[in-house]
Structure formats: C-alpha cells, structure tokens
C-alpha cells in the first residue's frame, strides 16, 4: 500500500509539473540551437541571449514550484479534503508520513537532477572546471562535495520540518497558519541553540578554532568541516524529532474539516 501511495504521489507531481518542465526544456533546446546557429550568423546570438535567460528563469521557477508542490500535496492529502482518502487507507500514520517524505524527496531530487542537467547543457555549470578543482585545490573540492551533500540532506530535513509545522498548525481548530508560523519560530530558536552547542563542542575539540590561520587552507578546511559535520548530525537529529512530532500530531491531534 505504501508503494501505491508513493506511486500516486509521483503521478500527481508529474501531472502538476510536466508543463513547466517541458516548457523549460523546450526553451533550453532553443537556447542550444540558437547558440549553434550564432556561429553561422550573429543575428541568432540575440535570440540565443533571450532564450538563455528565459531558460535559466524557467529552471529556477521549476525548482521553486517543485519544492512548493511537495507541501501543497501534503496539505491537500493529509490535512484537507483528500485526507479523507489518505487516512482511511489501511496504513499506519507513520507509514503514511514516511511515504509522503519519500515521495516529496524523490520529486525534489528529480527536479534537482533535471535542473542541474539543463544548467550543464547550457554551460552555466562547467563540470570540467569543477573536476579540475580536485587537482588545483583538493581541500576546496572536498569542501564543495561536503557542502553539496549537506545541502541535499538539509532539504530532506526541511521537508520533514515543514510537514511537522503544517501538522502542528492544523492540529488547532483556529488560526492554523499562525500556529504554523509559531512552529517555524520555535524550530529556528532550537536550531540557533544547537548551533551554539556545535560551536562549543568544536571549541572543546579545537581550542585554537578562533585563531585559525585563514591563509592556511588545510587548517581552514579542518576547522570548517568539524562545524559542518556536527551541524549535519544535529540537523538529522532535528529531522528525526520532527518526524515523530508530525506522526504524533497526525495520530492524536488532527481534526479534519470539510472545505
């Protein structure tokens, strides 16, 4: 049943996002074609510039819309009218929530892969230059890889956090969006507290943290990677906590209303 719920979530996402991605793909193809033609006649270069800009805008809008549609889907299928279907399926609340997290994350990953592929195609991202970085500065290259990995994990965590915030807000029967906002504030505060704890831990591990020589890339990488890794562990912990909060609220607090 989880697989079916996951599959139908993806079918819905595909239906919702297909035109924006097909449109962007079309403009990107035009941009590439005009770029090739501009070598024959400079007039095509003007068309290329326009298509190039529209293509980048389309990719960014597509990404933002994909991210937004994850929460829109959660709102409709867990908290509003479609929830009357979802919650009557023979699935535990934990499994429903897990399916929603996985389908949302799958969409996000697919959207990122499509966006990055298109950006590589129109030469906004130069893969070769990035790979060359490994030879030029391995520390910076490793730092970049670590940053990308942590960004992906952070997006995964943020999906769970926003799900928990929506579930919290809609466990009240009034001023739901205000309570969603309150949840975000609480999350922000707890994140800041954890950042300070992270800093304290790093200071204990490396007492010279504040006196690191910023001209020494190895020392900089070592100092920053410690902070980044502990922050990542804290974020994953927050994600797990938020999953259980959302599951608890979904089981005990949500009172669906019609309309």
């Amino acid at each position: 049943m989880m697989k079916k719920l996951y599959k139908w979530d993806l079918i819905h996402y595909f239906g919702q996002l297909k035109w924006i991605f097909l449109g962007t793909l079309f403009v990107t193809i035009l941009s590439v074609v005009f770029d090739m033609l501009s070598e024959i006649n400079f007039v095509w270069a003007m068309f290329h510039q326009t298509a190039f800009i529209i293509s980048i805008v389309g990719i960014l809008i597509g990404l933002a819309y994909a991210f937004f549609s994850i929460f829109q889907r959660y709102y409709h299928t867990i908290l509003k009218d479609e929830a009357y279907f979802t919650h009557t399926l023979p699935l535990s609340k934990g499994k429903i929530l897990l399916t929603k997290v996985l389908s949302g994350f799958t969409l996000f990953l697919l959207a990122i892969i499509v966006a990055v592929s298109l950006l590589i195609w129109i030469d906004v991202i130069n893969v070769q230059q990035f790979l060359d970085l490994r030879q030029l500065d391995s520390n910076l290259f490793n730092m970049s890889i670590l940053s990308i990995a942590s960004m992906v994990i952070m997006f995964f965590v943020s999906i769970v956090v926003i799900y928990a915030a929506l579930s919290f807000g809609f466990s009240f029967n009034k001023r739901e969006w205000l309570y969603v906002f309150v949840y975000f504030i609480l999350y922000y505060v707890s994140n800041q507290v954890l950042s300070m704890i992270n800093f304290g831990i790093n200071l204990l591990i490396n007492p010279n943290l504040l006196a690191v020589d910023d001209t020494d890339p190895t020392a900089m990488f070592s100092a920053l990677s410690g902070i980044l890794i502990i922050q990542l562990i804290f974020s994953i912990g927050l994600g797990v906590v938020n999953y259980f909060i959302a599951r608890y609220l979904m089981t005990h607090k949500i009172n669906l209303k019609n309309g």
Partner: protein
Amino acid sequence: MLEAINLTKAYDNLLVLDGASFKISKNQICGLLGPNGSGKTTIIKLINDLIQPTSGQILFFDQKLSLKDKSNIAYLPEKSALNMGQFVLGAIKMYQDFFIDFNPEHAKHILNLFEVPLTKRLAQLSKGQRGKVQLALTLGRKVDLYILDEPLDGMDPASRDLIMKIVIKYKKQDSTVIISTHQITDIESYLDYVILLKKGQILESSTAKALEKAHNMSLSAYFKEVYKYDEEII
C-alpha cells in the same frame, strides 16, 4: 458486526459525543439520524480512525477495530476526497490500483446511470456530479461495511431515490451500510436500523419497524417530533 461501547469524544472542554453505545448487525441498512451538530460525523470519523476517542471503543466483528479492518470499510465522505485535477477515469484507475476489492465496471456503470461523463476532470463537474463520482467509487468496492456520510446532500430529488436503489443493488451481498443524514424522508423506507442522535447523545437505537410501532407513527414523523423546535422561542 459493528459495536460501539461507551464512545466519548471531547475537544478541550467541549463534549461532542457522550457515551454512545450501539450495535449494528450485518446485512442492514442503518440510518445515523440527527440534526447538524448531533454527533453523526464524529461517530463516522471515529469508525474511520480519522480521530481518536477520548474514551470507549469500537468492535468490528467482535474484535477491537484495527488497521487491517480499514481494508474492509468503504467510506464516502461528506465532501469529495478526490483530487480535483484528476479525470473521472483516472480516479477509477486509482481506486482499482489501491483496492483489490474494487470493481471498475460497477463504478463505470453507476456513473453511466447518473450520466456523469468519464472523460472530464472532476473540477469540470458540478458539486452533485462530484458526489456521484465519489459514490460510484465507494460502491465499486466490495466490502463488509459501507459508511456514507450525507450521500444525499446536494443531490436533486430525482437522484436521491436512484442513489438509494443503487446503494442496495451494488453493495456487497450481506454487507452493512451506515447512512448519516438529516434528510430522513428520502431514505426511511430503506432503513432496517435507526440510531437517533441529539446533542452528542444517542436518544434511541433500534430497528426501524420497532421504532415505528413503539411510537405509532412513521420514522419521518417521529424524526420531526423528536427534533421539533420550540414555537415560543421564535
């Protein structure tokens, strides 16, 4: 088949269901009757695990209602629970995928009877037509318990009788149907069992015939008698 034992539901300090107990046998059409705010939807939500009881429990085939029982209950919510961007045929396909007990031919046939186009998006249909799609999908399933929350709401008078006939014909054999409504005149002739609710409490629960006999009047007349307003307060 379905038994509620001392079911109570309270939101903060507001008691919306107060110690409701009833027993519904199999192969019955049961009317959950009462005015708005009497606790009908609360009972339905509790049976469907959409909310948790403050106290009390529900038994299904003499066992505490569990997750696996959900596969044996088909629920028609008051408002369409379908994605409005979906095509009618897409919704049928989705039900077919989710529920092994779903008969798509029955659903399509019911929609043909209602003259609902299969190739339109749900958003393009009227409120009544959307309700009919949801009803066709619910009755397309072959389960032991059907729960229909206000199935006659927003339906034209001609459709109401047809709906009841379709419910009787397309439900699984020997299954039970719980219908929540305040439009008693349209369904009274179909009811085997009646649960009357008022302000979160069960006023009476017995067979329709016993109730009519005890009060020497039709069900709809008794309904009006029970829920009549006080002339003096107008």
